[in-house]
């Protein structure tokens, strides 16, 4: 039985690999999009938060893309009260891609804004104001294009910024995203 299964398995892997690497998936005009859950680590309060992370990216050339990304605040990962009522963020920027077959490593930079409100229960500050804060985010990531419709992705980013409403709070944190994306 093993003698049959093993060659079949190798043949199947070979066929998938041949399909993947024979396709020129990354091309000028390719649009990729994804939606995932993104955990983060905030350096100022040593707390992990998590976000719903959506992204849409267009390849202007094979090695150059522009992207719009949104992070919807979902809460913190611990049982303690979160410092934030919400801390949503939006980014727009560009990435430079290093392609080899269907492996796509990239670096990018994205200016952005956060829409942030501190949590009243955690801060005891009375009336809390919502603030819009400038952000800057260097991005590092990897896409693996397994099919003309699908790709796997890993993305990490540093978010730099500060919130200066009601009290000063650093928004600087590391965010990580991974999952399945779609190509159009």
């Amino acid at each position, binding site marked *: 039985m093993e003698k049959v299964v093993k060659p079949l398995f190798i043949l199947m892997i070979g066929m998938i690999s041949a399909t993947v690497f024979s396709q020129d998936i990354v091309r000028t005009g390719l649009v990729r999009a994804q939606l995932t859950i993104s955990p983060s680590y905030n350096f100022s309060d040593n707390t992990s938060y998590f976000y719903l992370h959506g992204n849409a990216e267009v390849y*202007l*050339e094979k090695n150059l893309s522009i992207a719009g990304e949104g992070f919807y605040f979902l809460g913190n990962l611990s049982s303690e009260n979160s410092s934030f009522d919400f801390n949503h963020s939006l980014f727009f920027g560009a990435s430079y891609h290093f392609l080899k077959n269907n492996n796509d490593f990239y670096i990018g*930079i994205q*200016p952005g804004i956060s829409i942030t409100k501190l949590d009243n229960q955690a801060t005891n500050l009375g009336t809390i*104001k919502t603030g819009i*804060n*400038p952000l800057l985010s260097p991005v590092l990531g990897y896409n693996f294009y397994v099919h003309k419709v699908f790709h796997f992705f890993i993305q990490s980013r540093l978010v730099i910024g500060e919130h200066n*409403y009601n*009290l000063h709070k650093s928004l600087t944190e590391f965010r990580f995203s991974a999952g399945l994306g779609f190509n159009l």
Partner: protein
Amino acid sequence: MKIIKLTFLICFLTSVNSYAQPESESTTSSNAGWFTLGGRSTVSLFDLDGTGLGTGGQFRIQLSNRVNTDWFADYITINMKEGVRSTYYHIGWSVLYYPFEELRYPKLVQPYILAGHCFDYNEKTAINTPSISKSRWGSAIQAGIGAHFNLSKRFDLSLTAQYMIHLTKELEVEQHENGDIHIQDHSHNSLEGHLLATVSLNYKLFRLWKK
């Protein structure tokens, strides 16, 4: 051996600098009329208010191979040490001049000098007492240097350092011994300003005219 190293270095630099040059265009063709749109991040430095971060956008209209114009808007916030938030809104324009003929679009590195004018709005608010707040409108001039990095035929990443001088009375923050914060107009124009370091991402959308 030194000659070989030097030759290798020259070949490498030449190849890097000619990387972004497409076959169909050369530096001698006219680049007038390009409309470019982009986003930017700005760090405000050497400001009496402190160091701040900003987000904004700009468009450019290129007038000739040597001259470009940059129309921008920035939103910058600064956390002052007195517990005051200083927010700047800039809206203005600059003229970019490309001094080196051999380093113009579509070369990879395209240095420039720039100068211009902007309107600015500054609002200072006590962070934990938002009712203590004061704002002013003003005008400013700026000048500096920078470089486009033409990563493709239509896309560039630009780095700019420019000093902006405010031509208006600044808002002064006083913190009394009991901790009270008082914000007031400065008694006279002081020519204070800040150094703005900007990274911008720009895409040439279309040509408004062709020469």
